[in-house]
C-alpha cells in the first residue's frame, strides 16, 4: 500500500468516525478511542482531520493525544499486557514478576516483541490493590499474579 493511499484511507476513516460521534458532548476522546480501535494506534494524519472537523487547532488535538499514554503513535502487538507498577502491586512483588515476564518475552517496558505478538506496558493502579499484583491482558483484568500465572501468560501471549 502506498503512503499516499494510506493518508487517504486514514482521512476517510477518521472523517467517518467523526461524523458518527461529533454530536456527543466532548467528542474528542470518544473519537480518538474509536480511531485507535480501528487502526490500533492514532495515526498522525488523523489529527488535522479532527482539528478541522471539530474546529480546533492541530496543536490542541496534539496536546490531548500526547497527554494520554494510552494513545499509541504506532501499532501495538497482537496482545497488550499492562502491568500495574503502583505502590500496592510493588509491595506484593510485581517488580520480580514483571522482570520475569519481560525476560521470558525478551523485551523491555513499552516494547513490542519482534514477532509482533505482544506489547508490555506499565500502568499505575488498576484499582485492584486488594488482590495485587494485578495486570490487564487485552483489556481483561488479571489479579493475584504469581510465577505460574506469569509463565502461563507468557505462553498465551506468544501464540
Amino acid at each position: 500500500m502506498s503512503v499516499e493511499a494510506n493518508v487517504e484511507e486514514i482521512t476517510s476513516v477518521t472523517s467517518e468516525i467523526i461524523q458518527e460521534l461529533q454530536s456527543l458532548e466532548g467528542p474528542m476522546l470518544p473519537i480518538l478511542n474509536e480511531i485507535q480501535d480501528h487502526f490500533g494506534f492514532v495515526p498522525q494524519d488523523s489529527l488535522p482531520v479532527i482539528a478541522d472537523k471539530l474546529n480546533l487547532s492541530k496543536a490542541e488535538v496534539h496536546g490531548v493525544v500526547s497527554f494520554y499514554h494510552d494513545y499509541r503513535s504506532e501499532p501495538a502487538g497482537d496482545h497488550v499486557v499492562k502491568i500495574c507498577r503502583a505502590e500496592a502491586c510493588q509491595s506484593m512483588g510485581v517488580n520480580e514478576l514483571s522482570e520475569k515476564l519481560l525476560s521470558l518475552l525478551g523485551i523491555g517496558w513499552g516494547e513490542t516483541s519482534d514477532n509482533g505478538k505482544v506489547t508490555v506496558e506499565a500502568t499505575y493502579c488498576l484499582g485492584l490493590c486488594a488482590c495485587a499484583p494485578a495486570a490487564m491482558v487485552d483489556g481483561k483484568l488479571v489479579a493475584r499474579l504469581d510465577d505460574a500465572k506469569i509463565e502461563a501468560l507468557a505462553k498465551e501471549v506468544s501464540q
Partner: protein
Amino acid sequence: MTLIKEIDFGTPESKSENMVSLIVDGVEVTVPEGTSVMRASQEAGIKVPKLCATDMVDAFGSCRLCLVEIEGRRGTPASCTTLVEPGMVVKTQTEPLKKIRKGVMELYISDHPLDCLTCAANGDCELQDMAGEVGLRDVRYGYEGENHVVARQNGEANPKYKPKDESNPYFTYDASKCIVCSRCVRACEEVQGTFALTIEGRGFDSRVSPGMVGDDFMSSECVSCGACVQACPTATLQEKSVIEIGQPEHSKVTTCAYCGVGCSFKAEMRGEELVRMVPYKDGKANRGHSCVKGRFAWGYSTHKDRILNPMVREKVTDPWREVTWDEAFKHIATEFRRIQYQYGRGAIGGITSSRCTNEETYLVQKLIRAGFGNNNVDTCARVCHSPTGYGLGQAYGTSAGTQDFDSVEHTDVMIVIGANPSAAHPVFASRMKKRLRAGAKLIVIDPRKTETVKSAHVEAAHHLPLRPGTNVALLTSLAHVIVTEGLFDEAFIRERCDWSEFEDWASFVSDERHSPESVEEYTGVPADEMRQAARLFATGGNGAIYYGLGVTEHSQGSTTVMAIANLAMATGNIGRKGVGVNPLRGQNNVQGACDMGSFPHELPGYRHISGEATRDIFEKLWGVELNKEPGLRIPNMLDAAVDGSFRGIYIQGEDILQSDPDTKHVQAGLAAMECVVVHDLFLNETANYAHVFLPGSTFLEKDGTFTNAERRINRVRKVMSPKNGLADWEVTQKLAQAMDADWNYSHPSEIMDEIAATTPSFANVSYDLLEEKGSVQWPCNEKAPEGTPIMHLDGFVRGKGRFILTEYVATDEKTGPRFPLLLTTGRILSQYNVGAQTRRTENSQWHEEDLLEIHPHDAEQRGIKEGDFVRLASRSGETTLRATITDRVATGVVYTTFHHPDTQANVITTDFSDWATNCPEYKVTAVQVSPSNGPSEWQIGYNEQATQSRRIASVEPAE
C-alpha cells in the same frame, strides 16, 4: 530617558461596578468584584511572587508561587485564582509561605540552566526576579537526574533535551529554559486566538509544542504575532534582536505605521538602535497585543535599500545624480514655477500620504493649496475608502467609523463584509475572535471562504459567498427581509431618522425584485441563507457591521456604504456600545489623511472648498487667497498629464504605479510629466518615472500623530535621528520655503496647534492633551473635551439619519467567453500593501510571491496544477504568476494579492470606478487564466525599465 516598565497585575481587570474592600498585609484596598487577590494586592502596591500569572491572560494557578494566607481559610490558596471577598484579610508574607515558595523555586531551578550571565533575558527574566524575591540561596538537587537542561548526559544524548527551534525569523524557542508555565500557550489562545501552541505530554515530559509532532514554529499554525514571546517569563521564547543586541535601556511609546488599527508600541532602544517593539498595554486600540508586522517587521527602517540622499535627473532614462537638499529644493521650485508659467497654475499638484503623519499631510495639502495656488491634491484614500467618506457623510453626517474598537466587546452579532481582518487588521481580528469565542455570532459576506469564516474555535453562523460586484443587491435584500418581516426598530427610526424617508426606503426595499429569492440568481447566495442572516442580525442583540475594501473598491462602492448605513439605522444599531458601522481603514493614517484635507474638494475637517467661511479661516491664517474650485483627483491628474495640461507632481509616500489601477495608464501619465517628485523611503515603482527623489524618514525618526480607524489620534514619537537628515515635515517645509512660503514650524506640535485652531473637530487637540490622555478620538472640542469614543450617541451629526435608496446596478465589467472568470484581490497577513516595507523584512518567508487562488474545477478545466505558472489576462493587460488550487474561492472566481511588483496585479485591473468618488473597482475584473511558461512580455519589459531607471551614478572621488 528610562525604560518604561508596565506593572503586571497578574490577572485581567474586572469590569464589575460593584466594589469590594479587603485588607492585604494591613493595607485596605477596594477593587471591583471579581478581582483576584493577586491583582488587589498589586493595586495596594504589594507584589505577590508569581510565575504563571500575567494580566494579559486569565488566572491559571499552576506555578504555586503566589500562595497567600487568608484569615479563616485553611491552607494556602493561590492568590491568582482566589477572588476577593468583602472583609477578607490576606497575608502575603508569612513563615510558612516563605518556606513553600523557596521550595517551589528550588524545584524550578533544579531543571533550569544556571547560565544567567550569558542568557539573553538577563535583566528581564521573571524567573531570575522570583528567585531573588523569595530569597533562594541554595539548590540541593543537581543535574545528575532526569532534566531538560543538558544536551548530553553521562556520555549519551539526553532524550529529554530539545535543541533550540530557530525556525521563526524573529524569535527562538529554547525548550531547555522552559518552566512550562503555559503563559505562551494561553496567550496564543486567549489573546491572539490562533491556538498554535499546546503543552504536549504530561508530568515531567510536559513541553511547549507548536503544532503537532514534527512541527516547528514555522511549520505550525503560528502567525508570529509575538504574544507568546511577550508572555514568556524566561528566555525560552526570545526575540532574536535581543539575543543579538542585548537588553534595551530606554523606551518611548509610539504608534505602529502599518495598518489602520493603530497599535501602540513601546519602541525599546539601546542608544539610537531599536532593540524591539513591544505592544503597549495602555494602547487603547490594541490593549497590549500586536501582529507580525508591527511587532517584528521594522527591519525596513534600516534596510540598505533606503535612499538617504536627494537625487535629481533630467530624463527618466538617465541615471540618478545625488545632490544636496538645497539643490534638490531649488530644482523642484524652479521646475514647478516654470511649469506653472508655461502651462498654467493648475498644471502641477500633489498627493498626500496615508503613511505619513497628520502634520505632514496637513503641510502637503497646505503647500498645494497655498503654495501651488490650486487644489490639485489627492490621497491614496481615493483608491480605498473614499466611498466611506462619501457614503457615511451622506447618511450620518460624518466621514468616519462610529465606534471605538473596545465596542466589539459588547457586540452580539457582527457582520463582516468585504474584509478579512485576520489578514489585514490582525490585532482587531484577535479582539473580534475573543468576543466570538465568548458567544457572539458572526455573519461573513465575502466571495472567499477566508480565515475569518472559520478558524480554531470560531465559525461564522452564516457565510454568504456572493459573486464579486453584487454587494448592493445582497445588502438591499437583507434590508428587504428585515422590512417585510417587520424586524426593523421602529422606535429608533421614529426618534432618530426621518420617518417619511424611511417609508420611501422601506417601500423601495420591500419590492419583490429585492427579495432574496429574486437576487439569488445573480448574487449566487442561497435565498434561505440570506433570510436567516438578516433575521439573525435584526434580532440577535447588539449588531455591528465591520467592512473593508471589498465594499468600497467597486463601481457601486458608495452605494454599498449607504446600504450598510441603512441596515444599521433600520435595526437601531447606532449610537451605543457594541453596535455601529465600522470601516476597517487600510493604512495607518488614511483616516488622518482624509481628515487633514487631502481631497481636492475638501479643506481639513471635511469642509467643502467652496464654503466662504471655511476658506476665510485659512486665507486669513495663511495670508493667501484660496481657489474655490475643487482640484483634480488622481485619475484626473493622470488623464490631464496624458492630454498635456498637467506637467508636475509632488508625491509623498505613495507608490501609485503599483497601487493604482490600470498600471499602463498610470505609467503613461507619469511618463508624460516634466517634473515628477517622489518623496519616499525607497526607490519605489513610481520613482522609475521620477525626476527628483527626496528621501523620506520612517515613523521611528519623527514626531507626529496618526489617526486610526476608530478616529483615535495617537502620538508618534521620534526614537532615532532621521537617517536621511530630515523628517518628512521638514522636507515639505523646506520645499515650501524654496517656493517662497513663509513657514517656520519648529516642531510638529505647532502644526497640530494650527490644525486645532482651524478645524472644529480637532479644536481641543494638542500635544499636551495627548501626553496626558495617551490618545483621543475626534471630535475633540468644547462639546467633547476628551474626545468621542462613540458617535451619534443622542442623534446623528447631520440631524436626522438619512435613508438612501440603493438600486443595484451591475458593473460594466462583465464576464464573457473571452474573460469568463472574475478576479478579486486582497491581502495576506505577513505582507503589507505594495510590500515596499514588508518585502524588505523576513516576513517574505511567509509569502514570497503573489499566488493566484483558483477553484479545483476551474483549474482542471484549464489543465492547471498546483504551483503552475499561469497567464492572467483581462481587457486591460496580462501578467503571469503561480497558481494555487483551493476551494476557498468559488468556481468562477479567482483571487490574488498585490504585494509584489513582479506580479503587478494592477496591470489587470480596469479603469472602472465608483460612480461618486472614482474609487477604482479593484475587486471585480473579468479575466481568463491559462497555462504559461513564464513572465509575460510586459513583465520583462517592465523589469528592464525598472532596473535601468534605478541606476545611481557613482560619485567621482574627490581629488
